[in-house]
């Protein structure tokens, strides 16, 4: 050791703080800590308040709606024409439209998003990743109305070349573009989850003679499963709630079908249609958007609860 003891000796010469000093400080300290904790708790509660607010708004307006329309017919009627002279209030066509477009979107977004995530996390050089990832995230920043026109003007005409008598508005085209639009949500989160798998896992696998592909699929993917599932759940929620793309390209036609080649309307598209439209507030047609919104909210809620349980089950343990 190069130092002498003089430093340490000087150091210990001051008397320790007396006990009463400490007590005085403690009271002040505890008060301050308490106030800060309450403030932070308040901030955390805002998210709960938001949910409560959403549910309150949706339920109270839906309440009026359901005093005119029976829940039974809402859930079983196969026609949705709330704004017509002879209104029918069956949510099934909208639900079918929502599920079909979402399904198409997921068929695009999950394989592509996962592939991209694996490619970026395990195959691409770091420099490529650093450039490409923000780029992909920008896809999430393009206004969805732009995607809507992209679907209508580019993708659907292309599809019509493949499927000759495809109608000009359909769930397939809207769903595909919606899928592309949610790729970044899926790929970015899934990639984060895979990056988070410690390097020691990769070294372990490579040291056995595994290729990148084997490492990615057999080790990294299962290890990151819970994070990847979160990414999927978010992607599904996005698809279910996506509005402008389907509003522009899917045809706005409540159609009780799951055939993606046909036009249809989704719950969110219906809501924005009415919000943009001409309906007197307080009319039953206006209240119908809250009933529709409530259905949408319940769907995403159910989805996320399932996601929560599934994620718990696959929690990473490296």
């Amino acid at each position, binding site marked *: 050791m190069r130092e002498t003891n003089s430093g340490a000796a000087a150091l210990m010469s001051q008397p320790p703080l007396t006990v009463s000093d400490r007590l005085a400080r403690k009271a002040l300290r505890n008060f301050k800590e308490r106030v800060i904790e309450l403030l932070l708790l308040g901030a955390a509660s805002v998210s709960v308040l938001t949910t409560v607010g959403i549910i309150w708004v949706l339920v109270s307006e839906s309440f009026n709606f359901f005093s005119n329309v029976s829940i039974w017919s809402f859930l079983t009627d196969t*026609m*949705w*024409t709330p*704004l*017509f*002279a*002879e209104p029918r209030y069956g949510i099934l066509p909208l639900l079918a439209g929502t599920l079909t477009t979402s399904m198409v979107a997921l068929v695009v977004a999950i394989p592509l998003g996962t592939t991209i995530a694996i490619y970026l996390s395990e195959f691409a050089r770091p420099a490529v990743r650093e450039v490409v990832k923000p780029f992909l995230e920008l896809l999430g920043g393009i206004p969805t109305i732009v995607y809507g026109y992209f679907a*209508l*003007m580019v993708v659907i*005409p292309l599809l019509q070349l493949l499927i000759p008598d495809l*109608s*000009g*508005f359909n769930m397939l085209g809207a769903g595909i573009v919606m899928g592309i639009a949610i790729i970044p949500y899926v790929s970015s989160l899934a990639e984060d989850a895979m990056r988070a798998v410690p390097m020691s896992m990769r070294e372990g696998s490579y040291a056995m003679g595994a290729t990148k592909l084997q490492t990615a699929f057999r080790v990294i993917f299962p290890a990151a499963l819970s994070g990847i599932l979160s990414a999927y759940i978010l992607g599904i929620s996005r698809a279910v709630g996506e509005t402008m793309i389907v*509003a*522009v390209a899917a*045809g*706005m*036609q*409540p*159609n009780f079908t799951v055939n993606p080649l046909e*036009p249809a309307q989704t719950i969110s598209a219906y809501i924005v*249609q*009415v919000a*943009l*439209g*001409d*309906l*007197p*507030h307080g*009319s039953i*047609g206006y209240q119908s958007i809250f009933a529709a919104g409530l259905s949408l909210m319940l769907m995403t809620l159910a989805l996320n609860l399932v996601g929560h349980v599934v994620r718990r089950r696959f929690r990473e343990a490296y």
Partner: protein
Amino acid sequence: QSTVKIDGSSTVFPVTEAVAEDFQKSKKGEVKVTVGISGTGGGFKKFCRGEIDVADASRPILKKEMDACAQAGIKYIELPVAFDALTVVANPKNAFIKQLSVEQLKKMWEPDAQGKVTTWKQVDASFPDAPLKLFGAGSDSGTFDYFTEAVVGKAKASRGDYTASEDDNVLVQGVSRDVNAVGYFGYAYYAENKGKLKAVPIVNKEGKPVEPGPAAVLDGSYNPLSRPIFIYVAEKSLEKAEVRDFVTFYLKNASKLATEVKYVPLPAKSYEVALEHVNKKKLGTVFGGEPEIGVTIEALLAREAKL
């Protein structure tokens, strides 16, 4: 600094926007004008809460809305500002549609047609057996209300299996891409897309097929699909100089500006009458809260004279 707040119909928006733009310029920015689009119904909702000064409306005020305004003590002056001609369009490549009668349109659009009338042949035996593709206004727009009233005979009575959109350009795209398509929307969208679409002459009450156009609207021969559009001004707001100035400016320039944005202006006489109403504060509506179709300019003027 003073502000004029306007909201309401998307159909009336282009005219009001043009007026607002020029008015602000003429006032050298001393007066602020804001124009929103929340639909005729949304506009009346705000109007009857006293949140805005002027409501744009593509149809006359309805009973429900009159009650709401009355309850809030809002009185208003109704001012027709231009005409719109709902235009039935088909694909330019379509060879067999030469004209359509209201009965034929009804066959296509009435609620009973849903799922049943799916080919042109079913509409008229002389048409080929080609699939029928329909495009139309979203079910909560003033355009939809008016069209159904005029064609089917009952507002909002329509089949549901057609492609609807609030955005008329989407409909333009749809019709221009499909040989067997037919659709309807405001005249301005047709006027701007004449290359991609053809307007279908409509057989009028007199039994004559008439193409939409300013002249046909003005002389009343394009019926029943032409309709007046309005602004409603709150009486209280008129006490503010800037609102009065704005409305006066509107009526004085509507003719020129409506033409510019491809609407059909009213005859000059009509604007003078309207201006008089403003000055004399003639309150209320001439429609009695019921939707009405095929009102000609003369009829409108006559009614207004009686106010």
